[in-house]
């Protein structure tokens, strides 16, 4: 059989048999030669020349290890140990079998050996490969899930930390609120006291009496007492008195005959003012004397000698 472009192909056949055509040209010629008997005969006619050309390079014994390695490789392959070439030279293995076409050759070798082992082995290997692939996939999924869990855990920790911080803030706010409420109550109590005080003082039935000072009283000190006939309430307003020293208190006494009753202690502010409201055990008409002493804190049984204010009722 002769193809139409034989003349063109025949020109290329010498270079083709020498392996000196570019890849695409070589493929073109090879395809043609496979189909064309005339061109195939032309190519075959050069086979002898090409077959003798290597002799032009001379001859040289390769080192003995090359043959040893080759035979070891064959023995290893024959032992059906397929994928594990025995006593392979590291150099050859590394370079030849891992690069380019060499790698393809190694792959083809492995495939050939696998086929050689028989269908059962191949299937088993295929199944093993499949399982290995599935295992790898599962492992990947597991790793991904672990990563997600770790992330969620981290997020949860962050939220927890925020929650703790918020709780702490809330507690602080509550404490502040409680303090504020206490202060408010105190303020309210004070305001209530003030209201009571003022309404009591300005009431028409209220009478007032200036208390006399003693030698123990500061010069500018004064004290006025408000009360209502037939009532137990007593309001005391004091000015110009120093705060009591530590361990001492100003104490209000009411006396009936020679019996003095401690009514309460009077707190003096830093401005020297004291407002004191108290309900006595009996209506004020029952008492005939009032006095304010500077006492030891724990001596409420009887008044001390240090009387600051006193008055007869």
């Amino acid at each position, binding site marked *: 059989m002769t193809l139409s472009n034989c003349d063109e192909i025949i*020109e*290329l*056949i*010498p*270079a083709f*048999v*020498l*392996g*000196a*055509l*570019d890849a695409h040209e070589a493929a073109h010629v090879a395809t043609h030669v496979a189909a064309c008997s005339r061109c195939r005969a032309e190519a*075959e*006619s*050069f*086979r*002898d*020349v*090409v*077959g*003798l*050309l*290597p*002799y*032009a*390079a*001379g*001859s*040289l*014994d*390769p*080192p003995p*290890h*090359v*043959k040893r*390695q*080759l*035979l070891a*490789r*064959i*023995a290893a392959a*024959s032992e059906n140990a397929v994928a594990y070439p025995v006593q392979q030279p590291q*150099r*050859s293995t590394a*370079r*030849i079998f891992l*690069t*380019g*076409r*060499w790698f393809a*050759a190694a792959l083809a*070798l492995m495939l*050939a050996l696998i086929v050689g082992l028989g269908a059962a082995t191949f299937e088993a290997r295929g199944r093993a490969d499949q399982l290995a692939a599935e295992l790898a996939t599962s492992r990947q999924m597991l790793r991904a899930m672990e990563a997600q869990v770790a992330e969620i855990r981290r997020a949860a920790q962050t939220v927890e930390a925020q929650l703790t911080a918020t709780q702490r803030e809330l507690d602080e706010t509550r404490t502040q609120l409680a303090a504020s409420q206490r202060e408010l109550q105190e303020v309210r109590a004070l305001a209530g006291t003030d209201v009571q005080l003022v309404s009591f003082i300005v009431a028409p039935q209220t009478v007032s009496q200036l208390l006399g000072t003693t030698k123990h009283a500061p010069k500018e000190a004064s004290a006025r007492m408000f009360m209502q006939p037939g009532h137990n309430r007593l309001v005391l307003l004091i000015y110009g008195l120093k705060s009591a020293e530590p361990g001492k208190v100003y104490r209000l006494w009411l006396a009936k005959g020679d019996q003095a009753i401690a009514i309460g202690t009077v707190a003096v502010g830093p401005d020297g003012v004291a407002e004191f409201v108290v309900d006595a055990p009996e209506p004020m008409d029952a008492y005939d004397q009032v006095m304010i002493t500077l006492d030891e804190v724990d001596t409420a049984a009887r008044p001390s000698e240090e009387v600051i204010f006193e008055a007869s009722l």
Partner: protein
Amino acid sequence: MSQIKPPMADSSALDDEVLIARIARRDSSALEQLYDRYARIVYATALRILSNTELAEDIVQETFWRVWRRSTSFTVGRGQVAGWIFGIAHNLCIDELRRQRSRPVTVQSEQDEQTILEQPDLQGDVVNAAIERERRRIILQALAQIPPEQREVLELAYFGGLSQSEIAQRLNSPIGTVKTRTRLALQKMRDLLHNQKIGAEDLHD
């Protein structure tokens, strides 16, 4: 060619095909014999092409490994075993050479290159060496009879691993000229071998 009678008594071709048949039956001693017969030619050729002993050793091993693997695909009677083995080796060498050229650094030094006619003749065992010497004499004689410019393109193509366009570039010649020289060189060589009745097949029949 098959009608041409061998000019000398040579039983190696028959032996080669017997060896191939034994190799196909997984007889490694047969491969060993074939190796002893042709490894030194393969090695010298690979060394000539690659100028690197380690690479050449790899080529030798890989070539005979492929012979071992592909022995069943060799068609008895179709052609010479030696040519088949050299073809495998040559392809491996060219692949390696082109792989090297695709990298930026070239391994081969041009100063190391020797021309075909300058290669030393090295000895194997006595019978084998005699056959080798005879074949070498035939090819060198044929090479000597073609014009130097044709010998040059033949050498650059076969031992240089260069394509026609690369040879044209190297020689600064038109590609048409290179193609013509290659064709003429090979045709002349073929005719010389036939006229001398020393075709390769004759050596093996």
